[in-house]
């Protein structure tokens, strides 16, 4: 068997620099990314979250920008122009053309009020104030309340919950009792009492919400910590002698992130809602200041006749909530190390 394999001449030849480059490109190596970069990259891929982020940024800019530039002064009163409905120039759909149904007939409210030239995008309220400016103003105040309350929620709640769950045993029991007691006082009781004892106003609302809102976060984080700390990777880290603080930040926190973020996304609407409920009860922000809650509450009272006064703030509130939630979902997917595609 003279099995001689005849190889063609060009089977072997010295490697050139071009060939080397081609080989390197076949190597499986992604650019090295930090945790945050990785999350950011994945967030951008999520269309819903990305749009939400942009919407939120726009709302923030408009709400806080209205301190400097506002279509009208949110507190300027023109009783003659009271309760004008929405009028957007160029649109003649009922509901946006300045007409409204009064006593069974559709009339041009602007003409009736002698304001034919004027147009208010969202209409005016009972004192003739521009609702658009007031909604911007109210959004700002609601956001401030919600964000400050959420900040408390995050810092106190997460630390407390992680510590309690991690330590376990007697410390956990005592900390849980404290939480239970705080949870067992209906938070509206404390909030209402505190606001009345302090002076009703923005600061006392923030303090009152903050003092009562962190507990849920603490409970959730603790429950998750309890579950996580019995898992193998934590056990491994412990066995290897890792310091608890390091375990908390390196192993627990990333795994807790989904719970924390989702709960944060619930805390923001909760805080805004709480403020709204307070204004319904009658201890909200003092007039002529406004929040989305007080605007909704005022609108709710006139819903039968002037529906736009409730729809506009409700729409803005819903958009904010929707955006926060979708962004929360996106962030959860982006942060969670387990959901790598």
């Amino acid at each position, binding site marked *: 068997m003279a099995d001689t394999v005849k190889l063609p001449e060009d089977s072997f030849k010295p490697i050139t620099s071009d060939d080397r480059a081609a080989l390197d490109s076949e190597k499986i190596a992604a650019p090295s990314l930090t945790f945050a970069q990785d999350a950011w990259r994945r967030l951008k891929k999520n269309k819903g979250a990305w749009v939400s982020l942009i919407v939120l940024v726009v709302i923030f800019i408009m709400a806080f920008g209205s301190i400097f530039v506002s279509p009208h002064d949110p507190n300027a009163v023109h009783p003659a122009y009271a309760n004008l409905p929405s009028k957007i120039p160029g649109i003649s759909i009922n509901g946006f053309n300045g007409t409204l149904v009064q006593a069974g007939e559709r009339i041009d409210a602007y003409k009736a009020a002698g304001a034919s030239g004027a147009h208010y995008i969202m209409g005016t309220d009972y004192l003739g104030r521009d609702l658009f400016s007031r909604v911007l103003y109210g959004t700002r105040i609601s956001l401030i309340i919600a964000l400050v309350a959420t900040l408390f929620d995050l810092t106190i709640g997460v630390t407390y919950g992680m510590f309690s769950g991690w330590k376990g045993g007697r410390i956990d029991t005592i900390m849980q009792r404290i939480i239970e007691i705080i949870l067992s006082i209906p938070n509206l*009781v404390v909030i209402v009492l505190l606001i009345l004892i302090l002076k009703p106003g923005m600061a006392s609302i923030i303090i009152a919400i903050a003092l009562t809102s962190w507990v849920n976060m603490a409970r959730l984080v603790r429950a998750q910590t309890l579950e996580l700390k019995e898992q193998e990777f934590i056990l491994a880290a412990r066995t290897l002698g890792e310091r608890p603080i390091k375990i908390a930040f390196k192993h627990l926190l990333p795994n807790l992130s989904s719970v924390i973020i*989702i709960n944060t996304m619930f805390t923001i609407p909760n805080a805004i809602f709480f403020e*709204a*409920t307070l204004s319904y009860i*009658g201890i909200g922000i003092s007039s002529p200041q406004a929040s989305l809650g007080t605007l909704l*509450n005022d609108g709710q009272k006139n*819903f039968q006749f002037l529906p736009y006064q409730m729809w506009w703030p409700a729409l803005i*509130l819903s958009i904010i909530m929707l955006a926060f*939630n979708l962004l929360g979902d996106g962030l959860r997917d982006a942060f969670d190390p387990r959901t790598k595609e």
Partner: protein
Amino acid sequence: MAKYLAKRIFYLILTLFIVITVTFFLMKLLPGTPLTNQAKLSKSQIHLIYEQYGLNKPVWQQYLLYLAGAVKGDFGTSFQFSDQPVSYLISSRIGPSLQIGLQAMIVGVILGVIIGAFGAMKQNTWVDTTTTVVSILGISIPSFVLAVLLQYYLGLKAGWFPIAEWGGFIYTVLPTLALGAQPLAESARFVRTEMVDVLSSDYIELAKAKGLSKTGVIYHHALRNSLIPLITIVGPLAVNIMTGSMVVENIFSIPGIGEQFVKSVLTNDYPTIMGLTIVYSFMLCVVLLITDILYGIVDPRIRLTGKAN
């Protein structure tokens, strides 16, 4: 288990004691008087009436007297409703609040779980998007706005349900919907998030590989494991419902304790504030105790702390 329960009940009493103490002293800091006719009374008249009610005694004495009464089940007499014992006031008004609260909780959580589970199973499809939007809308609309919308469109315009007042079951439909929206939305989102996590975990892959039917996998493995974090939010949901009830009862003219509580706080009706706070705290304690016990049952990895000792 018995030992654990005894321990928890001891803590419950301790909790109530602390709640009473904190609320009592906070309440005494409220500006104004508990008198219903305050605007028309001069200082000397108020002083005379205070003397009659024992309100001019030092606060600590009033506190001890209150504690002594509370132990015997005597929560004092309401200031708003003259000569009505607070215990009677609460017992005659708690029924509607409990009914609506429970209905809202049950309907909300069950629907929420179903919607959430569907969303997770059909992840990233239009079903998922729809469930997400529905659940987000549920938490985007304050209950008083939702109540007004339901009342106007389903009550007044369509005439399907009574607009307000309290009668048979039909009267509870709109308030239950208004109150149930938030538990529905929150549990739907929670269940979806958890289930997406669980569905991508190894043991589900294993179960699938073993050839278990899809419903079997979902029902026996995914759903059960997704419900654990849900149990932890039942407590906070109960708080939400209590808060919401204060507004919803007002809008639907329901003779419950929610709107009564708000009125008591705004009129400084000290005995009623105390009585209702105790009732609310007690209910919350019970909800929390039940969720803790359930937690132990659903997730065998969590041991009840009492047992360890």
